[in-house]
């Protein structure tokens, strides 16, 4: 088939259970593969790595001219901004979350995460069949992010609806009409922003120790987010803080149940768990693609990509590139020098990566001893629509 339909084929829902053969085709056709709509697709490790470190590659969708934007795009959150504005906002957002200002914040959550995990495991006792997504992989990160940010878990029906609408519009797919999707997302953004700012306002001068409280009570006015920045940042952190972790945990269970020898090995050698989580991030990552736009005509491996053109970097393909990774299609928890793209690379490397790592390690560490006789009820499981944030919608297993 033609390589200029690769992105369309990858994002087609029927490819969701196994996009990896298409990634192999992409790397074979590449490194730079032009798509029918004028955009470019790249799936080889070294080219992706170079572009993620290239200061001429913009993350800001407003710099795109091909394919053209259908409507005015509002200022995005820092995930899709460029330096120096990206750096300023990310640094402010980092103040209550990580180093240099709050280096111990995430580490201090280990106990709470273990406790939540324990409760979820306890609730699985005596059940013969469970859905890994609904019974475990979703409740853990959503509970954690709610407590971290100070969002009441009781409001789940609200924020879940907003999250679904916003995540759907953030997907990548060529040639489809996204007007309705974007309108719904815009509205969800406004509502969710108001909701989160309102929660923060309630804590003004009455600090409660959560991140919304820390943001609103930042004593140095020069370091305090504006209301608009607070809304955008809080939406980003809340959604990114749980959506992808659900996929990471679920993909972990799926991968291990498909490979009983590796499951058995991790049961015997729990010390390998941190490396196993990294290998999972390489082998079945929660984020498969990111878009970038060159701010000038750039040359990539002999192809000139014009300024303003959409360039989709298939991170999940890069992490399966045989050039840097020996036997890339093998899940190997002892893989040396595993510099995967599971959390991206460069200045936009996932803000919440350490939290996701600790949650995934706690979740898999608690589940692995209970998966001894477990089997998949359905393989492949039903997947979510999203091609960029890829993961099973349900993962029924028999214990």
């Amino acid at each position, binding site marked *: 088939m033609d390589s200029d339909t690769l992105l369309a084929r990858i994002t087609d829902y029927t490819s969701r259970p196994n996009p990896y053969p298409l990634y192999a085709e992409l790397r074979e056709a590449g490194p730079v593969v032009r798509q029918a709509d004028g955009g470019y697709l790249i799936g080889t490790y070294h080219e992706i790595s170079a572009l993620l470190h290239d200061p001429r590659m913009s993350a800001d969708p407003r710099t795109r001219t091909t394919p053209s934007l259908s409507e005015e795009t509002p200022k995005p959150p820092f995930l899709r901004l460029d330096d120096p504005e990206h750096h300023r906002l990310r640094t402010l957002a980092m103040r209550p979350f990580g180093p240099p200002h709050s280096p111990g914040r*995430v580490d201090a959550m280990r106990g709470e995460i273990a406790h939540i995990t324990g409760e979820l495991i306890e609730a699985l006792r005596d059940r013969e069949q469970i859905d890994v997504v609904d019974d475990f992989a979703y409740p853990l990160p959503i509970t954690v992010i709610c407590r971290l940010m100070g969002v009441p878990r009781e409001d789940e029906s609200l924020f879940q609806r907003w999250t679904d609408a916003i995540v759907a519009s953030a997907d990548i797919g060529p040639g489809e009409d996204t007007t309705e999707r974007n309108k719904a997302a815009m509205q969800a953004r406004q509502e969710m922003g108001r909701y989160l700012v309102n929660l923060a306002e309630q804590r003004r001068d009455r600090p409660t120790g959560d991140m919304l409280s820390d943001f609103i009570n930042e004593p140095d006015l020069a370091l305090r987010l504006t209301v608009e920045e607070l809304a955008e940042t809080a939406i980003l952190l809340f959604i990114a803080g749980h959506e992808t972790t659900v996929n990471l945990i679920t993909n972990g269970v799926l991968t291990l149940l498909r490979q009983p020898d590796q499951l058995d090995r991790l049961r015997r050698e729990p010390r390998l768990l941190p490396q196993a989580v990294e290998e999972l991030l390489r082998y079945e990552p929660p984020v498969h693609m990111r878009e970038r736009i060159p701010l000038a005509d750039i040359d990539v491996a002999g192809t000139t990509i014009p300024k303003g053109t959409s360039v989709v970097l298939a991170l999940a393909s890069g992490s399966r590139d045989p050039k840097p990774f020996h036997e890339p299609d093998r899940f190997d928890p002892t893989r040396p020098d595993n510099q995967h793209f599971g959390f991206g690379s460069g200045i936009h490397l996932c803000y919440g990566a350490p939290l996701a790592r600790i949650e995934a390690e706690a979740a898999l560490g608690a589940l692995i001893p209970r998966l001894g006789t477990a089997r998949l009820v359905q393989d492949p499981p039903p997947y979510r629509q999203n091609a960029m944030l890829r993961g099973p919608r349900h993962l029924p297993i028999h214990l």
Partner: protein
Amino acid sequence: MRTVVDLTRCQGYAQCVFLAPAVFQLHGEEGLLYATAVPDDQVERVRQAAAACPVQAILLGEEVSAGAR
């Protein structure tokens, strides 16, 4: 146990600081300082930090023992 960070590779992602803040710390926005001797109760955290390092710059291990042959 001893640790050393290849600061030629380090790009300041600070994943190690999040995961083992008693051993690794940022000096300014990006510079990394670390405890060269890892206390026993921090070894697991440093192991996790070494696995998580995006540029695989952290080495944890034993030093050459004084009377080694």
